């Protein structure tokens, strides 16, 4: 499986944000995007996921097989928002994700265990602290399988122990042949990741 971007351009509200971005990831590869605020990291991730239209160039997934014909079907996207419902319990949220996305991977308990929050399954998501919410969102990556992870500042709000757990999760995903693109301001502990620095930066 290969994820390639070729001279990709993205725009926001009619204005070009970045241009001419190219990369190629094979199984087990990761890409870490850094850059100033407003330089277009989040925009790039959303363009890759297909949530924003491609302004120029192409992004393609090759050899995804029947299950993963295009990028959108092959990726987990974790944005700034956690995509969980505060009124439902943590377990209900994760169960929904698995049922809706298909390709079940871990049980809810195992996923909660992996982020160190095994006792909160029965609590409403809205009762958690900021960091705990982020960790549940990370657990959401584990309940159903996707070869490509697109992570937007995954470590925002995490404490030290959870940051280490996150690194381990990402390394595990890569070791099993997954791919990963992460936008971040903080070091993520992925040693052999490719690096992409977004130039410029809104008005910062």
């Amino acid at each position, binding site marked *: 499986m290969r994820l390639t971007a070729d001279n990709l351009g993205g725009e926001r509200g009619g204005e070009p944000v970045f241009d001419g971005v190219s990369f190629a990831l094979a199984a087990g590869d990761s890409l870490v995007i850094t850059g100033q605020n407003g330089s277009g990291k989040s925009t790039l991730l959303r363009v890759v996921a297909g949530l924003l239209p491609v302004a120029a160039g192409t992004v393609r997934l090759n050899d995804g097989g029947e299950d993963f014909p295009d990028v959108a079907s092959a990726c987990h996207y974790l944005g700034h928002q956690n995509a969980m419902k505060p009124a439902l319990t943590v377990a209900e949220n994760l169960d929904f994700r698995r049922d809706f996305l298909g390709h079940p991977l871990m049980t809810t308990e195992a996923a909660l265990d992996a982020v*160190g*929050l*095994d*006792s909160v399954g029965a609590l409403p998501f809205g009762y958690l602290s900021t960091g705990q919410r982020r960790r549940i969102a990370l657990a959401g990556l584990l309940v159903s399988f996707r070869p490509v992870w697109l992570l937007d500042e995954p470590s925002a709000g995490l404490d030290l122990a959870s940051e280490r757990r996150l690194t381990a999760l990402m390394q595990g995903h890569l070791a099993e042949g997954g791919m990963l693109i992460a936008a971040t301001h903080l070091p993520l502990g992925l040693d052999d990741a490719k690096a992409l620095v977004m130039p410029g930066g809104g008005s910062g």
Partner: protein
Amino acid sequence: MAETTISGRLTNLANPTRFLELVGRFLPWLAAIALLLTFAGLAMGFAAPEDYQQGSTVRIMYLHVPFAWISMFCYMLMAAAALGTLVWKHPLADVALKAAAPIGATFTALALATGSIWGRPMWGTWWVWDGRLTSVFVLFLMYLGILALTRALDDPQRSARAAAILTLVGVINIPIIKFSVEWWNTLHQPASVMRLDGPTIHPSLLWPLLVSAIGFTLIFFTLHLMAMRAEIWRRRVAVMRRMAAKRAENRAPA
């Protein structure tokens, strides 16, 4: 560290504990007296002469009037409890309010039902949208609204305040019910017992009515105390469960 507040929480409930003890002692007596009075009142009512206009249907009065009174009395009780929650923050006040709501709703429903059963022969219709009837109907809606609200907010502290405020704002309906017969002179009977210038009802009908009203009021209190006891127990179980979960967590930190 967490232990101190939890024990503080328990001493906080000490007041309710004494309450539970008292209730346990008095409840059987109260229930017995209530039933006795109610039966006595109803029996007297059946022995009383029939009304020259209404015939035997007048006997519904011994049910209808107490039910109607209690439905309003219960709301005033809840309003007092609401004040207790908001001003003195007394832990029992919220329990009292929450426990009273379903009972009040039931009595209001009964008042509505007996009223329309009475209305069928008297007015020739089950239901009219006159001032009194409609304002009682609105009272019924308000009881149900308070019930729905307390069910929608699961956190007891938050729901306590919310229900208290709603109850207090709804108090304006009570004078409307009371005076609706005078403001919109409608089908319904004007007040004949609770008047400033004394009752205008014949004593042979009045006495059974008063006795059965007292009996039903005592039944109401019996039910209310039982419901309060159940609510306190329910909350204790919830606190205990949370404490147990906390302890299990602390024993096995991740």
